[in-house]
């Protein structure tokens, strides 16, 4: 026995060493105990020394044996519809585990479990085996630390501050434990907001870039003095643009201004223009090519407006600006006229003239298309 003690002492050292090497798997203690027990059994069987690896493997096999036996017994218990294992389940598990070696009466299917050959063998071993207690006294493991719950309002004996909190809930911690927290939090939020503002500034500068491109784009499309002259309408258009700015190209943008005219009679002409723009993808030459008919239209509209000065007097500068940019002028002028309730008066002439204009524009367009198409195709 003294020898066994020496072995186990060495074993403990070794297991500690292994723990340090392999890191915590949580089961070293049980494995070390299993090794000691197996070493004691081997000693009683007649061995005096052992190879370390052999002992490890034998103890591993022992652990697996216990676990398999437990699993089998539990499964037999569950098969019988119970949760608590009884002796017969364990014996059935033993029979199954011993079926690879065979045992007495294994061939008899109808035998009573209580009279199983494994039990008889076990009793025989039990009567023959010498009683070797384990070398150490072991505390029950794994150690489960008892959690100390936070006392409730009821246990402390104080009333919960807000009435909607029931008394059985855990009490609040002392105020000094959380009083300082808000200042730290504020600091954190401050830094957060600062970061957020910085990010917003960045995005603002990013956003201003497409705006600038819009300006330059408009400049290339028409006269550079559009923005100041255009007044509130033009500004609104430019300010409204940033949300649309990134994905759109300038041709499409200008079209979007033209789309909402109130006059159905002029829409046809405008749509033709839009179609033309969409087809050509680059509206500047188109505008130039359509300059003469548009000029003609402008002059008509101006004349008509001169005739109705009383109504459209306020909008004079805006109308002049529209003269500068052909397409825009159409849409906005119509909008303005509708706003000023000059629609009824304007409708008769616009109805007649637009038909003439349509014819003119279509004729011109067909001509220009026939001449321009080869060029445009080459450009595309």
């Amino acid at each position, binding site marked *: 026995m003294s020898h066994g003690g020496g072995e186990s002492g060495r074993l403990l050292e070794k297991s500690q060493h292994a723990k340090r090497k392999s890191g915590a798997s949580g089961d070293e203690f*049980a494995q070390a*105990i*299993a090794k000691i*027990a*197996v070493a*004691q*059994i*081997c000693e*009683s*069987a*007649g*061995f*005096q*020394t*052992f*190879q*370390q*690896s*052999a*002992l490890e*493997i*034998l103890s591993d*096999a*022992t*652990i*697996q*044996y*216990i*676990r*398999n*036996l*437990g*699993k089998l017994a*539990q499964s037999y218990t569950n098969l019988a519809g119970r*949760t*608590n*294992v009884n*002796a017969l389940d*364990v014996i059935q598990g*033993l029979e199954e585990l011993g079926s*690879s*070696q065979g045992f007495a009466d294994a061939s008899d299917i109808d035998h*009573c479990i*209580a*009279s199983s050959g494994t*039990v008889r063998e*076990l*009793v025989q*071993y*039990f009567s023959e*085996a010498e*009683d*070797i*207690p*384990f070398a150490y006294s*072991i*505390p*029950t*493991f*794994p150690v489960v630390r008892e959690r100390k719950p936070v006392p409730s309002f009821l246990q402390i004996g104080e009333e919960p501050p807000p009435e909607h909190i029931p008394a059985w809930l855990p009490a609040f911690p002392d105020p000094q434990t959380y009083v300082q927290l808000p200042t730290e939090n504020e600091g954190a939020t401050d830094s957060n907001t600062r970061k957020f503002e910085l990010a917003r500034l960045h995005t603002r500068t990013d956003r201003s870039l497409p705006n600038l491109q819009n300006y330059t784009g408009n400049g290339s499309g028409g006269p550079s003095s559009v923005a100041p002259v255009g007044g509130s309408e033009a500004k609104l258009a430019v300010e409204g643009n940033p949300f649309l700015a990134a994905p759109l190209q300038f041709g499409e943008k200008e079209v979007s201004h033209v789309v909402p005219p109130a006059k159905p009679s002029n829409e046809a002409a405008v749509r033709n223009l839009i179609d033309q723009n969409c087809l050509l993808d680059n509206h500047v030459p188109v505008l130039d090519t359509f300059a003469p008919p548009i000029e003609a239209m402008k002059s008509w509209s101006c004349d008509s407006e001169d005739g109705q000065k009383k109504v459209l007097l306020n909008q004079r500068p805006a109308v002049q600006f529209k003269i500068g940019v052909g397409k825009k002028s159409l849409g906005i002028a119509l909008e303005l006229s509708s706003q000023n309730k000059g629609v009824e008066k304007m409708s008769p002439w616009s109805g007649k003239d637009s038909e003439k204009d349509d014819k003119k524009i279509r004729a011109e367009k067909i001509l220009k298309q026939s001449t321009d198409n080869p060029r445009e195709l080459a450009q595309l």
Partner: protein
Amino acid sequence: MNHTNNTQQSNDARHDDDAALTEFLSSLMDYTPTIPDELVEHYLAKSGFQCPDVRLIRLVAVATQKFVAEVAGDALLQCRARQSAVVKDKREKQQKDKRPILTMEDLSKALRDYGVNVKHQEYFADSPSTGMDPASRDE
């Protein structure tokens, strides 16, 4: 008549078996197996086995002890057979090899009978002295 006699006999035998089993289980109460209860309980709990009865824990412990003892006995037989074969060749080593050693070689042979396949690596160094004395290792 004969039939009833048989059943009666078998009933008696069953009663005897039951009595033997209960006696065995109750005798486990006083027995302290080499494998400690705590260890067995720990691993049984890991495999889902739950039972407040100490006798069942002891039953498992005794069964495990029997298993280990059988394996160890087989390994010892292997060891003895190997040594006797060696001793036939080299008489002068007889004194030195008297102490039986639990080696991987014997253990793997013994465990194979119990359904455990142990493949020992060929050049696995069990101890620092493994490669020191090739003559004694070659045996």
